[in-house]
């Protein structure tokens, strides 16, 4: 400390704002260095790999004999990566800002020329990249499932991109909440709550809302049966009898789900499933034969494709006219009507963006108002 050193090249300190990209990069590098040098992240990655591997092996064993094995496995992995990703992303992001505050490093950043927006962008990018590592780590299983066939490239690509987008949304929610909440623990729990609200809450609200859109409807349902004349006293049809299509009409209460399907839109699983262009079998190529049992391939959707189909059938509303073909053919794939995922992604982005905007205001210094119990430094 005995000598004072002047800056080697004396120049007036610029007060121009920092270039956005270099400022974000500095924060990103700062965050990533800490993450890469800590142990926690590697532990999480290790546990993740083991769990996904376990589920993959289990899945292979259970559905090994079914049709569409590759497709179902791929779908299963996508679903689990999304589920676990939604559990991991808040943990990686929701203490990004208030953790720094607790550690006393936030104020040190705030007295530099960095703007709150740049700070949040850097933190978000770092947590997103951190959670994308989990996606990358699942790739061996994803490729394995793809190698089994049955999934086209476009479907796989869109699935992965949407997974990455959903992880980004979860991280943005986490970073936003962490800039609002005082304590890291509180913000992590709040972020989990928000993510659960999207993933589970939407389904519950949808389920409860069906009661509100119940309408009494007349349904005409048709099915194949043997004519009564061909059935003997024991209830056994005559051997040469032919089945005929019989229609039955009854009234029942059915929910007009087409009016409330939008509630499901913001669900991360729905967003991913609805965005993926699944290859549907040609109509009539599966099941549907009036006589006996189909020998062709059954339509067997995986987890995510089932969600996609569920949303489509909810969008379509109640089926008031069940034809004989429908009643025989088992599950029939529904083609996509109006895609719902842009709405869902929009809602999610609004939520995350709103949180980040409020957070940015909260981080703007000099502060006029402080949250109760906050200490700047």
């Amino acid at each position, binding site marked *: 400390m005995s000598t004072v050193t002047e800056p080697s090249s004396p120049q007036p*300190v610029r007060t*121009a704002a920092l270039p956005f990209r270099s400022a974000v990069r*500095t924060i990103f590098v700062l965050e990533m260095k800490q993450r890469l040098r800590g142990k926690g992240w590697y532990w999480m990655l290790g546990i993740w790999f083991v769990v996904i591997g376990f589920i993959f092996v289990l899945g292979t064993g259970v559905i090994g004999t079914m049709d569409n094995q590759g497709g179902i496995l791929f779908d299963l992995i996508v679903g689990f990566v999304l589920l676990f990703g939604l559990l991991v992303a808040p943990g990686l992001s929701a203490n990004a800002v208030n953790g720094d505050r607790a*550690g006393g490093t936030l104020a040190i950043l*705030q007295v*530099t020329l960095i703007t709150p927006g740049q700070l949040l962008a850097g933190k978000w990018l770092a947590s997103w990249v951190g959670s994308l590592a989990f996606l990358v780590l699942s790739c061996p299983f994803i490729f394995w499932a793809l190698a089994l066939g049955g999934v086209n490239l476009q479907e796989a690509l869109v699935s992965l991109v949407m997974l990455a987008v959903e992880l980004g949304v979860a991280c943005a929610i986490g970073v936003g909440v962490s800039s609002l909440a005082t304590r890291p623990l509180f913000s992590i729990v709040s972020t989990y709550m928000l993510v659960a609200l999207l993933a589970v809450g939407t389904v519950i609200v949808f389920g409860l809302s069906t009661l509100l859109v119940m309408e009494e409807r007349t349904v005409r349902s048709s099915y194949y049966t043997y004519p009564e004349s061909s059935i003997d006293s024991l209830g056994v049809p005559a051997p040469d009898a032919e089945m005929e299509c019989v229609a039955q009409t009854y009234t029942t209460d059915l929910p007009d789900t087409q009016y409330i399907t939008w509630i499901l839109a913001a669900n991360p699983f729905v967003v991913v499933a609805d965005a993926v262009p699944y290859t549907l079998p040609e109509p009539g190529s599966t099941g549907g034969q009036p006589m006996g049992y189909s020998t062709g391939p059954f339509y067997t959707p995986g987890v995510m494709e089932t969600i996609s189909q569920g949303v489509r059938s909810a969008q379509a509303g109640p089926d008031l006219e069940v034809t004989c073909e429908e009643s025989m053919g088992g599950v029939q794939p529904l083609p996509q009507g109006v895609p719902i995922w842009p709405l869902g992604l929009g809602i999610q982005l609004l939520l995350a963006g709103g949180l980040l905007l409020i957070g940015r205001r909260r981080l703007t210094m000099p*502060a006029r108002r402080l949250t109760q119990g906050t200490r*700047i*430094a």
Partner: protein
Amino acid sequence: MTNDYGGIVVEGVARSFGTVQAIRDIDFEAPPGEVTALIGPNGSGKTTLMLILASLLAPDLGTVRVAGFDPVSHPAEVRSRVGWMPDTLGVWDSLTSLEVLKTLGALYGMSAADSARRAEELLVSVNLTEFGRQPARVLSRGQQQRLSLARALIHDPAVLLLDEPASGLDPGSRVELRSLLRSLAADGKTIVVSSHVLSELDEIADRAVFVSRGQSVKSQTLDEAGSQTRRYYVQAEPMSALAEALSSYGVRFETRGDSRREEFLVQLGSTAEASWLLRTLVMSDVVVTAFAPAGGALEETYMSLDTDRR
């Protein structure tokens, strides 16, 4: 908005947090080229004032100019000119000292080459060269304190705000801190130091502002503080002879009770008076064994202000 006068000018600043009035009314001035001490008991608003100066808090009332700029309306201008060393140690555990400094340099808009060079130089000035490539968590508290100081200096700020810089430093580091601050002041920097170690400040500071319960109660230069009425303690062998001599010259004294050895405290108006008394005592054959100011100049002022300490 700007004025040519660098330094810090604070007038009538108030700031409250909810119902707690942290600062009621503070006037404060820190001219460039001098070290200004900010002195006050715990909870008197020192750190709050530092946060306002560092552009982290907006005052409710009053005007603030730091290096000629208002921190509320021109935060970026203030931040590029202010180095702030907080009283809490914020440490990025896994980053090395060099990385911390280079990161901060980048966030002040310095080029990578500039901040790397500056970081190396600063590590030399704060004696942390051998720790430059070690993660910050291996640093001791005093070393982290020095890293924190280097961090505040990375962009060569014109104004330096140091909140309790000497806490946790060993005696050697304190001496080095003192000479570093003196040479920075000699370069024309404005330096504000808050500290409880008043004897430290005696040697570092050029002037002092005393705050109590959120108000600035006194502002004086060290020269003024030195020439004010001070108490001296005197010891002699035997003490009875001293008591006799003091009484005969009409000097009022009291016995100091808080020391291990018996000693007398006398109140003297100036250094001239002190030297007169010492000479007189020696001439009248009192065996004086100790004759010294009872406390530092700032400590005298601090105690005389009779601020209620909480």
